[in-house]
């Protein structure tokens, strides 16, 4: 093709010259499509699986720790994985406080790879939306849940199975259109 381009006479094979533009248009459309897709959304293998077995102590100054038994009490709950060093956690935090105020869905917290004192100070400063907290200092429980970044949230059904996984901060839109409807469907109080 190169030789042809080199020796082609005027006006012939105009299509050859237009083809780069056409191919580029197709690639650009693909890239546009790509913008609305999120490659980070990877279907979690934990969906519909029972929560892993664990027993975590509470973060400093809190009374109730968190264990897998707490998730098998026939209640729909939201387990939120957070850390005091996590910036995005601050973003979703007011939403969790609002959730607690409304009392529609219990929220349990797992402080992921965080010093329990730091977690406690963080909760004291920003408000505590969690009815139970677990200090996962080593990150072991997080690994069992399949956490690969904070914040992440898991909606647990009455049967103690993971029904939904939220990667990244919860937005009001996620809450109203995904999490709460699903919680209602699972038969929670919401």
């Amino acid at each position, binding site marked *: 093709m*190169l*030789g042809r*381009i*080199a*020796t*082609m006479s*005027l*006006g*012939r094979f*105009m299509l050859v*010259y*237009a083809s*780069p*533009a056409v191919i*580029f*248009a197709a*690639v*650009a459309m*693909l*890239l*546009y*499509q*790509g*913008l*609305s*897709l*999120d*490659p*980070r959304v*990877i*279907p979690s293998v934990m969906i519909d699986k029972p929560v892993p077995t664990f027993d975590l102590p509470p973060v400093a100054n809190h009374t109730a720790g968190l264990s897998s038994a707490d998730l098998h009490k026939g209640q729909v709950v939201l387990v939120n994985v957070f*850390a005091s*060093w996590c*910036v995005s956690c601050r973003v979703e935090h007011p939403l969790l406080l609002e959730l607690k105020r409304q009392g529609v869905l219990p929220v349990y917290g797992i402080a992921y*790879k965080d010093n329990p004192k730091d977690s406690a100070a963080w909760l004291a400063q920003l408000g505590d939306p969690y009815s139970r907290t677990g200090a996962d200092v080593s990150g072991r429980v997080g690994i069992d849940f399949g956490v690969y970044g904070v914040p992440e949230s898991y909606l647990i059904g009455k049967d103690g199975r993971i029904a939904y996984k939220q990667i990244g901060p919860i937005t009001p839109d996620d809450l109203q259109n995904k999490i709460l409807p699903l919680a209602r469907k699972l038969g929670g109080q919401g």
Partner: protein
Amino acid sequence: MIAETGHFAMILALAVALVQGTLPLVGAQRNHLPWMAMAGPAALAQCLLAAIAFFSLMTAHIVSDFSVLNVVQNSHSAKPMLYKVAGVWGNHEGSLLLWIFILTVYGAAVALFGRNLPAGLRARVLAVQAWIAIGFLLFTLLTSNPFVRVDPAPADGQGLNPLLQDPGLAFHPPFLYLGYVGFSMAFAFAIAALIEGRVDPAWARWVRPWTLVAWCFLTTGIAMGSWWAYYTLGWGGWWYWDPVENASFMPWLAGTALLHSAIVVEKRDSLKSWTILLAILTFTLSLLGTFLVRSGVLTSVHAFASDPARGIFILAFLVLVVGGSLVLFAVRAPTLQSGGLFAPLSREGALVLNNLLLATACGTVLLGTLYPLLLDAITGEKVSVGPPFFNAVFIPLMVPLIGALAIGPLLAWKRGDLAGAIGRLKAAFAFAAIMALGTWWWLSNGPLLAVLGMALVGWLAVGVLVELAERLRLFRVPLAESWARARHLPRATYGMSIAHFGVALVVLGIAASGTWQSDYLGVLKPGQTVTVGPYDFTLQSVGPVPGPNYQAMRGTFLVSRDGQPVAVMQPETRRYPVPPMDTTSSALRATPIADLYAVIGEPDGKGGYAARLYHKPLVSWIWLGAMVMVLGGLVSLSDRRHRVGAPSRRKGALAGAAVEAARA
């Protein structure tokens, strides 16, 4: 105050760029000299303003001004000074500012050293440059302003990703950008030529050195990135076919093709429209790299914090710039007068083969990079395309390329004599056979790829020497005459030989390190000894060591060979408190013969530690070879023909100045 100065300078630079992008262009169309002449001073003013903006941000980082959001998010007061400076471009906003600054430095270089360019071409080139600058300035000002303040200012920053706190990485992005942005010069010249409807050897003589400068920087940048991945990530590999690595590799492949096709335009006045297309594509791929890294379309270890609004903006910019130029190409390219004809077997033919193979390689890398996106868009299925795909398609393309690399330079222009060329390569053929048989014997039926790789090394290295000897008529005329020929041979010829020899060294490093590597992966207790290759590694002790802004656990290995101590190696695992992150710091003992490489990992709780030990023969030649290629490029740049007629004598100094500026 300093942040506002920088912000204001950026806005002024945008205003200047708007003038530079319009008046000279109109002036060139109407042959109005004063308007055309505005391009030069405008380019200089823009460079000055971009420098003010860039150094304002750098000052904010150096003094740890935590009232600037960018500093808060990417710096920390306890960070060593080197990384405070490097932190300027270790983030999305700052790296864009660096990009703009480099772009304007190139523009200023055309204004300063391009005085003998035809006035119309110079005006148009600078106008096109200005439009690229406008796009990036708007992008930065509208979506990614690095000068945003925070109130109240926090007491300290959030720190820089510890993986990026490495001297090798500190200078990797500036080199990469000098390469990427450097291809904007070839692009600007290509668009200017399309507007004028004229491409001639003089044009190619202008484009080639700029492409060569960009290519040298990009090669250096990629080699540095690969070297960084090799010794910091602790995986022992040196290339991962990560989308962002590919994003820098694609413009390199296209740029290498451009470098070769521009020779044909310069010497033979042929392959014009193809060369123009390559110039456009090379810069397109540079922009595409920017898009992929910053839009969050693909996942990668390199991805900056992504934001769909930014993605839309870059995509729109990409469509405007690339779509516009490809439409211009479709309209104007058919009118380009084609020059000399040539037979398929000729120097031109060999260069076309080079271009075909490089362009195909570039296309396959593009396909592999975008395939996960394509599949996700069509079926919603998530896949990642990894080394197996790339190795399977890339190696079969590189083998004939390297095979032909030894032959091409021996062919004459217009009509070459293949049999004669191969006849002259008898020595290379013999050497390749010896290397292949030697490898075969040593490995006793080892992998075919290793045998092939070593044969190619012998073929290419000796082929390059044969070609040089042919030019000097070495051993066929008296030595004195050969010496006289050697002194009169153009530097570009030496540059070519050196660069091609560098390729042989890179292949040597890749083939040998892959074939003869030995390793140990397992748990070691202090006092235990393992044998890796010809060396014995004894883990002497493991203990905590404080670092400037991290806590390290350091293992000490005593390395010996035949009972003689050779080295003490101390790999570390580092734990950074802000942001919390563990990194491995491998210990490396690099020699031209072989690298020893040690990584220490997690304790197993029973007194042992996970350890990885490697012995990698000749692996350094991958990067040394790349540097030899760059050296070839620099020697070629110093060629007389780039200095005579074109006042680019100070180009070396200029490139140096650009590096200095980027480092400062």
